[in-house]
């Protein structure tokens, strides 16, 4: 595309892993160029070495553990693989800048965001006055389309929304118009509509500031939307690279093909009409979070606002919406982790909205939950067998029977029967999510509530776990409430979809109808913001 010198030229970069692991290198013989006004996307699953490559360029690797063992990283001609710590401090922030995945944790929580942006100027342009810096901060904040820069500059990170925080990170990265911007999964933690805005912003700023971008992502939708060049990595190696049209449409390497194949698309399942008698019927459910401060000042947040729906036996209802829409509050209320202000939850005809004590404990076995993060939802110090039998034994099953059931369940979710005495850390993310599903099934529930149960998984693993859900549902016949922000995933597994916005269900209907002929304007907005629609058409053609 451009003939001039690349901003970044990586040649034969290798990063060694400490000895005794399953492979010797985190990254091996990686070479690519990033040009001015271009976005280069590095795609891969977890463990592919994409984030290590990004951190190596910034020289932010924990160098005791991950050592650059070969190759050169030339930033505007200068090899930074061998640069001194002092030189690196000069380059970071001024010639190369980085944007991280999770903008909440990546910002200093006890420092005003304006000061955090100004700090970059303070470090690299020590001659400037405080007023000059303040003026520049306002300018940058306006640049990244933050509203009311004057006021927001004095806010702390926790007072901003996720999208605003990421805009602050971008403003910080742009402060000195660096030649290279490295973005490590910059939109993964954001809602789809926010993601679309941020990606558009990236494009605009790139041309304005004349920088090049190295973007790390696992999302082929993002690649299709913004990439000028794609690099696909697997286990530390580059397996394929080229223009996005070529890589997405006609992948050469079998791994790339498998990856693209695994990306969920809008696909609707056809099921015979489910039974008419609902297992659960929710009527006008409302929940308000009340926050009483020390001085008695009240803050009320309406989490659920007159939510009503029914769920038939064996049916899957998808709950979609942006963060803060009330999806998780709904899931928690159904499990009665929260007590609703008003409304009824009729489980097999019995209202469980006001249950307490033993009756509540007894009811809980019928509704089980699978959580988002399989790394955090299993007790790391308990063998998984203990986790699997705990619930059934509590509810009166004998220990021997519980173990037998746990073994059967392990097999059912595709794990070995004899793995019960292992600890969670001995399993991969996908395997852990299978264990969490087995744990939920051990209670023989009528309903499973899955809250973003596949969101933390790689696409290929995601596809497997989704298939497992479907398969188990067919065999065991539980009903499921599937909470997700990913509309494609929802289309794959759900019979009906409830779209939530600000605590209300704005649209409810069969999945295909909701996604193909949306009635609510909010549903249309959500659908329009889904990344990679272009690529989907491209691949489908």
């Amino acid at each position, binding site marked *: 595309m451009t003939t001039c010198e690349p901003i970044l030229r990586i040649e034969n970069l290798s990063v060694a892993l400490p000895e005794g692991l399953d492979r010797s290198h985190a990254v091996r013989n990686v070479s690519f160029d990033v040009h001015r006004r271009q976005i280069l996307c590095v795609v891969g699953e977890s463990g592919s070495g994409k984030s290590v490559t990004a951190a190596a360029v910034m020289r*932010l690797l924990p160098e005791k553990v991950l050592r650059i063992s070969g190759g050169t990283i030339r930033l505007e001609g200068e090899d930074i693989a061998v640069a001194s710590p002092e030189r690196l401090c000069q*380059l970071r922030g001024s010639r190369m800048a*980085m944007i*991280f995945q999770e903008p909440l944790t*990546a910002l*200093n*929580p006890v420092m005003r965001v304006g000061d955090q942006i100004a700090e970059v100027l303070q470090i690299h342009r020590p001659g400037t006055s405080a007023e000059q810096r303040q003026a520049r901060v306002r300018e940058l904040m306006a640049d990244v389309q933050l509203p009311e820069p004057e006021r927001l500059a004095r806010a702390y990170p926790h007072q901003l929304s996720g999208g605003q925080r990421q805009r602050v990170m971008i403003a910080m990265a742009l402060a000195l118009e660096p030649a290279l911007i490295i973005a490590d999964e910059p939109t993964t933690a954001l809602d789809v509509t926010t993601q679309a805005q941020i990606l558009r912003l990236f494009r605009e700023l790139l041309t304005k500031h004349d920088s090049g971008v190295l973007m790390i992502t696992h999302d082929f939708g993002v690649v299709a939307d913004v990439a000028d060049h794609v690099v696909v990595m697997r286990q530390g190696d580059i397996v394929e690279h080229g223009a996005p049209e070529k890589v997405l449409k006609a992948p050469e390497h079998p791994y790339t093909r498998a990856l693209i194949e695994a990306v969920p698309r809008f696909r609707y399942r056809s099921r015979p009409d489910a039974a008419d008698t609902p297992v659960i019927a929710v009527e006008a459910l409302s929940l308000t979070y009340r926050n009483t401060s020390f001085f008695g000042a009240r803050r009320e947040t309406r989490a659920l606002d007159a939510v009503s729906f029914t769920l038939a036996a064996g049916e899957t209802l998808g709950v979609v919406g942006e963060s803060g829409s009330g999806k998780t509050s709904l899931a928690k209320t159904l499990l009665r982790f929260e007590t609703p202000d008003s409304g009824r939850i009729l489980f097999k005809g019995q209202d469980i909205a006001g249950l307490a004590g033993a009756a509540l404990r007894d009811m809980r076995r019928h509704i089980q939950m699978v959580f988002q993060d399989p790394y955090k939802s299993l007790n790391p110090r308990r063998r998984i067998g203990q986790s699997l039998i705990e619930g059934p034994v509590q509810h009166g099953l004998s220990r021997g029977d519980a173990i037998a059931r746990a073994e059967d369940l392990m097999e059912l979710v595709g794990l070995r029967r004899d793995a019960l005495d292992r600890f969670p850390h001995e399993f991969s993310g996908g395997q852990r999510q299978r264990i969490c599903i087995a744990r939920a099934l051990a209670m023989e529930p009528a309903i499973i509530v899955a809250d973003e149960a596949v969101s933390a998984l790689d696409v290929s693993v995601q596809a497997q776990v989704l298939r497992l859900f479907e398969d188990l549902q067919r065999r065991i016949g539980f009903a499921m409430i599937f909470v997700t922000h990913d509309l494609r995933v929802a289309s794959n597994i759900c019979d009906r979809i409830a779209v939530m916005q600000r605590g209300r269900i704005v649209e409810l209907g069969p999945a295909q109808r909701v996604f193909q002929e949306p009635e609510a304007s909010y549903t249309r907005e959500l659908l329009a913001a889904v990344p990679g629609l272009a690529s989907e058409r491209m691949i489908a053609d």
Partner: protein
Amino acid sequence: MLRLIALRIAMAVPVMLVVATIVFLLLRLSPGDPALIIAGESAGPEALARIRSQMGLDQPLVVQYFTWLAAIARGDLGFSILSKVPVLSLIFDRLEPTLVLALSAILITVVIAVPLGAVAAWRHNSWIDRAVMMLSVVGFSVPAFVIGYILILLLSVKADLFPVQGYVSPFEDPLAALRHLALPSLTLALVFMALISRVTRSSLLEVLGEDFVRTARAKGNVERRVLWRHALPNAAVPIITVIGLGIALLISGVVVTESVFNLPGVGRLTIDAILARDYPVVQGLMLFFALIYVGVNLLIDIAYVIVDPRIRY
């Protein structure tokens, strides 16, 4: 902020009331008869009865309690049984050495222990880290009076660098005061330093692994600035908490240290009063220590709000 302070002060009243009740009961229910001490072993029963009725000891416990409470509310802590001096002025007279000693110990601790802990965390697993942790184990395990006597033996008796004991007010002769204060405040600070450096280290270690520290590096901050400007303020809440708890530790330390170095402070007063069963003085001192503790807690609550904008009451 002002509302926070006002509210906290209002909340201190019931706390002090509970403390007062416990103090009262503790002393009345413990064995030993103050009238006997005043009158002496040889006094006859009439003399004892007279003294008891003078002091109100012949009244029912409840009456004694409310009489006492009403007096405290007026700021009247009674008179010392031994010296016949008002308890309040007795405490005030002895306050200066104790305050000077405690403040200098806290100052030494914060100035030395926080940087030590920070460097240990930053150079995690290096020899500096191990040395600091070794020292803190020693500081922790050796009792204050042992450290005090060892310091006296080495630096005062053998090397003749510091005076063995005694107190000189810094308002009269700052230089002599410094020499007199050096050993006692170091003795007092050592346990405290061990505690604070350990907490600083572990709190910082946690913070150094966080994402925003990486962001700070990615901006081009030099390591020193990453540590002081970004990591330490985020590690401050646990450190402040422990400094507050440490002040309670300091109160017991003051008692021992003042005895070892023969300083005429509140700590010495406490020991003397307890040994003499001087009820009014002991009661006054316990209330005084409790008041200081409540005050320190208030300061810490305010400090939380200042160092972490996410904390709001």
